[in-house]
């Protein structure tokens, strides 16, 4: 692994010359509800070897901006202003010119690596097609080059991987493949649209390391689109903040993150939960009042949950987990995808059976209760799910949604139910006018408030919250969390709070349970687990979570690299060999390897 000085080829512009620039960019969409002005005249540029972060919440127009650089907006979009990629003006290119530019001058890394890769084509096929299309390598050479690219992004056994399909790779590896595809033709600039949002935090740290080494070693400019301030602090040289189609603030990472000038930026930063600063950021959490002799609200003893699969061995999703939630206590359940945290939550709700072990709610064993008693037990548990889009029945007005548990348990009459609903709407800070509204008329944050209100309708002693804020924008998340702590203080419910976000757990939980592959790695008081972790896995998790402050994040990153080194692992980075040759299009053999060749399952590589 060597760092090469590769500034010699002519394709790299002199410093200062932007590789991507937007001047007065404006985008409008024609929709069935009229025209929508998505981007309202913004100026932005990305220079070689520079990471510019474009930050904003959903609907701010950041992704639309990036898609204009490739000329890939849907046909109902109208674009004005000038977009330059290198020395090319995107608006002035015809179809062929545009296609030539894509991949060659500007490449894209998408958010969701599973859907960004074609499920029916091999990795090799998808990598070589770009190479052959832009005339960089053909046939066996292209295959060799593809293997080299995979090796560069740190995928072991690249030759074998080339023959595999996307579903055979893990999420992180898929994103590495997407990055390999992006750097295949050595573009001047890479647009990374939320490249780590769909990934676990440790994988995210690796991918960010990889992207960082990319700009260092290949001098590529990167336009990083993200909503995650931690990622911004970790990666960005400069930051641009977007709000409703406007750029409200630009500056260096230090300027924007540490000395924000615009109100919106300030509020946005204030809304980011900060790992390590503990509770109190969005309102205090009440101390646990339960006496030790009180029955725990939830007690899991040696819980095992298995999924039986047709024609495959049984999958043990949860393996010998014991934990308990005292009355009035918030227990944070942390883990990466596949750790079994949502499975445990579902089991605590009595929705999936335990293969062995016990689940007891306030001393009643869930697994042994039936019929009426079971129903009576259920009313003592409330639940909030992650996805605000699917957690409310779209056919019921909000009033009915919240009153539904009362109807199910035949409590009160219409009048008292209505009173209760209005009371809850007040409690979750929603206007009473939403009583007759339908879910699709509400925003994500509002819907999540309704979910919480519904969970509290029956005044439960235990609330199971499965990633209740992870689908929300940060500012909305901050508001919901604030409200949540206030509610908990008022209603004193115990809570099993499932989340992948350590920072959120840090500001809510009394105790923390860390899960990995269905087993508990570490559990204890928040302070201990999150600030002085004993187990290696917890240390890694915490080290990998980025914080929204550039200097601190740099320190944390170095600490993480040190930790990895201590554990004897490599830091993810681009492996550029000594004899690495920057690809240059060859004009001698025009042609490309796609079409029905791929259709019939034949690779275009001609190697077999």
């Amino acid at each position, binding site marked *: 692994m060597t760092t090469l000085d590769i500034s010699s080829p002519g394709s790299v512009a002199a410093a200062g010359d932007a590789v991507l620039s937007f001047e007065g960019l404006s985008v409008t969409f024609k929709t069935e509800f009229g025209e929508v002005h998505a981007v309202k005249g913004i100026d932005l540029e990305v220079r070689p070897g520079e990471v510019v972060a474009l930050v904003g919440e959903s609907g701010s127009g950041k992704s639309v901006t990036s898609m204009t650089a490739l000329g890939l907006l849907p046909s109902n979009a109208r674009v004005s202003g000038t977009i330059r990629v290198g020395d090319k003006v995107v608006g002035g290119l015809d179809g062929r010119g545009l296609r030539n530019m894509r991949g060659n001058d500007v490449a*894209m890394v998408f958010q969701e690596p599973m859907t*960004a890769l074609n499920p029916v084509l091999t990795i090799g096929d998808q990598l070589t097609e770009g190479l052959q299309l832009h005339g960089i390598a053909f046939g066996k050479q292209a295959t060799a080059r593809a293997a080299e690219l995979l090796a560069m992004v740190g995928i072991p056994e690249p030759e074998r991987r080339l023959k595999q399909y996307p579903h055979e790779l893990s999420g992180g590896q898929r994103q590495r493949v997407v990055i390999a595809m992006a750097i295949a033709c050595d573009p001047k600039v890479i647009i990374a649209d939320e490249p780590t949002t769909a990934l676990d935090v440790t994988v995210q740290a690796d991918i960010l390391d990889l992207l960082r080494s990319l700009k260092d070693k290949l001098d590529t400019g990167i336009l990083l689109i993200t909503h995650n301030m931690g990622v911004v602090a970790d990666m960005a040289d400069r930051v641009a903040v977007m709000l409703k189609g406007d750029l409200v603030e630009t500056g260096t990472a230090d300027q924007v993150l540490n000395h924000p000038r615009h109100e919106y930026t300030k509020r946005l930063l204030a809304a980011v939960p900060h790992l390590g600063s503990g509770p109190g950021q969005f309102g205090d959490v009440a101390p646990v009042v339960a006496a030790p002799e009180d029955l725990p609200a939830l007690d899991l003893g040696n819980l095992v949950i298995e999924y039986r699969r047709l024609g495959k061995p049984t999958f043990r999703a949860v393996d010998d987990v014991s934990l308990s939630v005292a009355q009035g206590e918030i227990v944070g359940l942390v883990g990466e995808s596949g750790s079994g945290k949502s499975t445990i939550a579902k089991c605590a709700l009595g929705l999936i059976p335990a293969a062995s072990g016990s689940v007891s709610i306030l001393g009643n064993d869930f697994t042994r209760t039936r019929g009426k008693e079971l129903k009576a037990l259920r009313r003592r548990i409330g639940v909030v799910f992650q996805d605000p889009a699917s957690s409310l029945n779209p056919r019921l007005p909000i009033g009915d949604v919240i009153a539904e548990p009362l109807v199910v348990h035949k409590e009160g009459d219409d009048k008292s139910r209505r009173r209760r609903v209005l009371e809850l709407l007040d409690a979750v800070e929603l206007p009473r006018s939403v009583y007759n509204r339908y879910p699709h008329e509400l925003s994500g944050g509002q819907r999540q408030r309704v979910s919480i209100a519904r969970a509290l309708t029956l005044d439960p002693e235990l609330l199971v919250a499965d990633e209740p804020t992870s689908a929300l924008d940060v500012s909305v998340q901050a508001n919901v969390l604030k409200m949540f702590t206030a509610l908990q203080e008022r209603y004193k419910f115990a809570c099993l709070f499932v989340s992948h976000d350590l920072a959120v757990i840090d500001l809510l939980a009394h105790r923390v349970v860390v899960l990995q592959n269905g087993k508990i790695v570490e559990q204890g008081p928040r302070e201990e687990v999150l600030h002085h972790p004993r187990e290696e896995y917890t240390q890694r998790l915490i080290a990998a979570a980025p914080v929204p402050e550039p200097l601190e994040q740099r320190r944390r990153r170095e600490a993480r690299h040190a930790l990895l080194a201590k554990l004897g692992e490599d830091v993810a980075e681009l492996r550029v060999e000594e004899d690495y040759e920057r690809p240059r299009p060859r004009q001698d053999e025009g042609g490309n390897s796609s*079409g029905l*060749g791929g259709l019939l399952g034949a690779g275009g590589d001609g190697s077999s």
Partner: protein
Amino acid sequence: MLKFILRRIGVSALVLLGASMLMFFLTINSGDPLKDLNESNSPNRENLIEQRRALLRLDDSPWERYWDWLRGVGGCFTGNCDLGVNINGVDVLGLTQQAASSTLRLVTLATLLAIVVGVALGILTAIRQYSGFDYTVTFSAFLFFSLPVFWAATLLKEYAAIQYNNWMAVGQYAPWTIVIAATVAAFLLQAVLGGTRKRRLITAATVFAFVTVTLFVFNALDWWREPMFGAGGVLLVSAAAGVLVTALVAGLRNRRALYAALTTAVVGVIAYFALAPLLLAPSWPLLIGLFVVTLVVSVAIGAAWGGYARKQAMLVAGITGTITSLMVVADILISHWASFLSIKSRPISTIGSQTPNFTGEFWERTLDMGTQILLPTILLTLVSVASYSRYTRSSMLETMNQDYVRTARSKGLSEREVIVKHAFRNALIPITTIVAFDFAGLIGGAIITEQVFGWKGMGALFQDGLNAVDPAPVMAFFLVTGVAAVLMNLVADLAYAALDPRIRR
């Protein structure tokens, strides 16, 4: 995968068993098998009734009869099938074999045609969504969905057969017919090809001129009655097809594939000359053998030209080879048209699957079979095309929205590559299932088509059986459709696994 398939077969067998029981009891209870005899006043009525009672075993319990039928079917696995006898005492197995072969010929041909045309139309309409072409095809598809088959059949008989045969006696197009045909062709082609207004106008004008001139020239040559195509024509069309296939499959920039395609076309025509004597009076095995040789040779040509793009070149050459051999056959058939007309002056038939007492050589007989099968095939194809084109369209639109299509575009792939390589292959996955499901249903649906065109197939077997409350032929019909359904589901599963690596295990 194997375990999965075995499981599927097991379940299907159970389902078939249940369905056969249902069919059997429904059939024997659908009426009185002795009705016609009871009403007759022939002198030996009692005798006949007694005979039939014995033949249909009306005095045995239904369960016994069903069990015996089942045992007979079970015998098929050990090589001695027994499907029972029909109401006239004829062995049903023989009847079924005859009927099934003629029905399957009809249905298979129609399905193959419908897949090709339907999928192509579906892709085109998805690409040109909300264009005039899209609306036209959509409307036609709905029209064909809504068509009562027997009603359309009567129209087809009248206009595609009777009127055509009348016209064939003269064989000249009236000038206004030519103008209308050219206009329609011009409109359709410009709608399919699209582009700017100017480009569309040029396309339309070119097509109009070409069609008009061609048709007038054909008129002048009396081409319709004495058509000829010639080796030159074969070469021209095959080469053009080769270029088109290359453009679609590999892109014209891929010279190696292009040269492979052109070489294949030329070699094909040379082989045509060389083999001309053999082709004068061939047999089916010979033709099939020649076709296999053609395929091997074309793929070899592709491999020779291939280089870095060998697989594509082989594919292109293979397709071109197939097209070339089809063109050769077409040329031979066309050159026999005149002699065919002299044997059979009204070429398109409306009844039956073969002209009775037809005397002709191999190629004339082939033409006769073709003209017999033409109308029912058109009818069956139209309905299937309608549904396949709709399914393909929606499936394509669905995949065109997927993220990986955006990724493909962001690499700089052209629309053709995005559609053919990335979108279409994914869109094909649901279509396969639907086509397989449809095939079995189509055999059932062919009953009407067969009845209208007097085609002695499964439909007649079923209908006569049901009318006479005679279970053996009805059950034979069920057996064929049921087994076809199970087989096609299996094919669908396999195709699914072949197309979708996610479930290949």
